[in-house]
């Protein structure tokens, strides 16, 4: 994990002092509402429906057990004893007091955390693959690169007032688990025939009101130039992105208006001046970044233990279910990554209580070298569990209610806070997720459906990534009433696609029934092992439409 040196620490400490000063000036009336707004946003502070909301950065999803405990303590002390993991690897507090925020930030700084640039029209928290460093399909560990980008983008003096927010995602594996095609900039690390590291740079993807898949700006950027090239990409956007209309201000609109060729031409022209400048990365700089992510001190797990694990799996059906759904293969034989499900009916998707945070931290210490990762699916991963400990871990998770063996199924809903918390919402989202989870509870049915992403957003802003759900649900407002629009066929992974709207929207209470009809069509029409997405792609939207609106 990345550990701060005195420079990093000084910077976050000075940031706290700066924000304390800004807050004091605001409360004393020397800083106007409009002028305070971007300052607080760039420290993660929103003014929400019921209370302020504070969004804490979890850079590329990595947390230590110590940090997690500190977060738990903060939610107890300053909030209502729980937090919400968002789809962007952040933690959101829903009930802090405005005037407490500088103190919260100071406590975060003590455990090398911050809320810098988690909101506002600036470069946001860089997101990545939750299985970074352990995935068997990994070509290059994206975390050192994410950290280099984090540092480059943190308090970047030129890019604090971009036309709109700017999100970067990085993957270094064959399978894209970071949804790089729907980010302002998506980066894919790969190696050419000569085994040289290259970066594929995409720009102009995004969700929100006008969802788009990113275009390729550069296929094979040599790694040395990553930061200068990013600087060129953002500089062109800063100069030419629209500022007259908030809804047309994202880079995707610029890329579309110019065309990718022209955007690329401008970036390359800009880059020609920046190339080989002081931000050019060196072998030593990258090695230094890599040294923060060493292999944990894994003890060897012998063949016998692996055989024994398989035997337990055969014997215990419940354990087997858990392993099939929540356990992921690891690059190192004898080790597994375990996904803790934060999805159960009693809680909003992604919510964790302070007690759960403590419990997860303890489990991380016992089973996985004291580290956890948070995922954009709003779950938590223990990345390095030896197989001979799996069953014990599962038992503990069962007791804690985090062993829901439904990761990747219809039950594993991605959902934004929606109208219960968010002042921008058109409609509630959490109760819709809960109604669906309630209706489709039967595990055998869920497993039979296979992998299925159902994503819910409470408005166009698409924090719940509804465009890229195999099934997407969007809250819409019609004459002051809450309705829900359903779309099908979205996908966030390699062959990314955006969902198509099924038709006129529905009342909230009808949504589970509509989903049921959609699933019926799939079950009737699927061939062999076909997953929902593939059936949809083969038969198109029509049969679904006919059934739902019959």
């Amino acid at each position, binding site marked *: 994990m990345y550990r701060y*040196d005195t*420079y990093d620490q*000084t*910077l976050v400490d*000075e*940031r706290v*002092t*700066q924000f304390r*000063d*800004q807050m004091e*000036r605001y409360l004393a009336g*020397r*800083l106007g509402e409009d*002028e305070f707004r*971007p*300052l607080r946003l760039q420290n993660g502070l929103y003014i929400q429906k019921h209370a302020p909301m504070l969004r804490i950065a979890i850079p590329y999803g990595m947390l230590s057990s110590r940090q997690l405990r500190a977060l738990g303590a903060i939610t107890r002390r300053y909030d209502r004893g729980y937090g919400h993991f968002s789809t962007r690897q952040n933690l959101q507090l829903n009930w802090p007091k405005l005037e407490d925020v500088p103190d919260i930030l100071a406590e975060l700084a003590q455990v090398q955390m911050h809320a810098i640039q988690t909101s506002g*029209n600036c470069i946001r928290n860089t997101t990545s693959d939750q299985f970074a460093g352990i995935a068997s399909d990994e070509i290059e560990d994206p975390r050192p690169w994410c950290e*280099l980008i984090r*540092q*480059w983008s*943190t*308090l*970047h*003096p*030129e*890019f*604090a*007032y*971009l*036309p709109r927010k700017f999100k970067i995602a990085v993957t270094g594996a064959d399978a894209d688990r970071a949804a790089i095609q729907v980010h302002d900039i998506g980066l894919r690390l790969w190696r050419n025939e000569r085994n040289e590291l290259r970066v594929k740079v995409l720009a102009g993807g995004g969700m929100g009101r006008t969802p788009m898949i990113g275009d390729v700006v550069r296929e094979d950027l040599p790694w040395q130039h990553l*930061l200068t090239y990013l600087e060129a990409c953002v*500089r062109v956007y*800063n*100069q030419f992105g629209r*500022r007259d209309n908030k809804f047309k201000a994202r880079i995707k609109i610029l890329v579309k208006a110019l065309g990718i060729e022209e955007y690329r031409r401008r970036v390359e022209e800009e880059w020609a*001046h920046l190339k080989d*400048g*002081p*931000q050019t*990365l*060196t072998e*030593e*700089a990258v090695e*230094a*970044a890599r040294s923060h992510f060493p292999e944990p001190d894994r003890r060897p797990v012998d063949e016998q233990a692996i055989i024994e694990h398989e035997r337990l799996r055969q014997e215990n059906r419940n354990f087997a279910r858990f392993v099939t759904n929540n356990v992921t293969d690891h690059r190192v034989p004898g080790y597994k990554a375990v996904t803790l499900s934060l999805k159960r009916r009693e809680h909003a998707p992604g919510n964790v209580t302070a007690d759960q945070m403590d419990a997860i931290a303890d489990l991380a210490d016992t089973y996985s070298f004291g580290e956890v990762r948070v995922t954009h699916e709003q779950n938590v991963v223990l990345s390095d569990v030896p197989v001979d400990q799996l069953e014990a871990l599962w038992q503990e998770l069962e007791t804690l209610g985090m062993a829901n063996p439904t990761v990747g199924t219809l039950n594993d809903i991605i959902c934004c806070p929606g109208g219960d918390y968010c002042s921008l919402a058109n409609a509630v989202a959490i109760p819709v997720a809960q109604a669906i989870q309630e209706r489709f509870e039967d595990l055998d049915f869920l497993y039979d459906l296979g992998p299925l992403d159902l994503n819910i957003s409470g408005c166009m802003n698409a924090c719940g990534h509804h465009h890229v759900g195999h099934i997407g649900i969007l809250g819409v407002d019609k004459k002051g009433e809450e309705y829900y629009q359903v779309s099908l066929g979205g996908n966030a992974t390699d062959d990314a696609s955006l969902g198509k709207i099924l038709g006129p929207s529905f009342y909230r209470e009808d949504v589970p029934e509509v989903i049921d009809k959609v699933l019926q069509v799939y079950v009737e029409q699927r061939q062999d092992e076909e997953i929902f997405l593939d059936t949809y792609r083969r038969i198109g939207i029509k049969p679904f439409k006919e059934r739902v609106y019959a």
Partner: protein
Amino acid sequence: MPDSQLTKARSLIKLGQPEQDTWSLSRVEDGMPTSRPVIVPLKLWFDHASEADVAPWLPSNTELTSELAEQLATAPLVAIDFPAFTDGRGYTLARLLRERYQYRGEIRAIGDVLVDQLFYMSRCGFDALALREDQHLDDALRALGAFSVSYQPAVDINEPLFARRLREA
């Protein structure tokens, strides 16, 4: 009459120190003021480019081509306008002027110039900051020194922190 609409910064910070402003600013596009020294819209400045007491201000949407930069090279001062503090184009303009075109004269931020923008502005090459009317000078001077460390190189530091760390290791 353009002269009747001239303004002077109430608080000007130059090279980190408060200073009395000697320049007047005209935002009027049709008609050259008679007062000197004066900062005028870029459009008007071209005809007075040879005068040492006339300087241009650039609107934030200026496209800084190499031709324009060449013309600006002789200006005694270049002001960059912030029509709203949320318009971040001026930061790029200042960096380009300094880093790409090696402009050595004063670069002055005018318009919606607020306390909490000053640190970034100074990193991007602004050495004169004409604060908006209502800003407090003491807040501004404090804000300029908000951070003692930066990750990225800019006009003020030419070395990224990652390189400095390696050098010091």
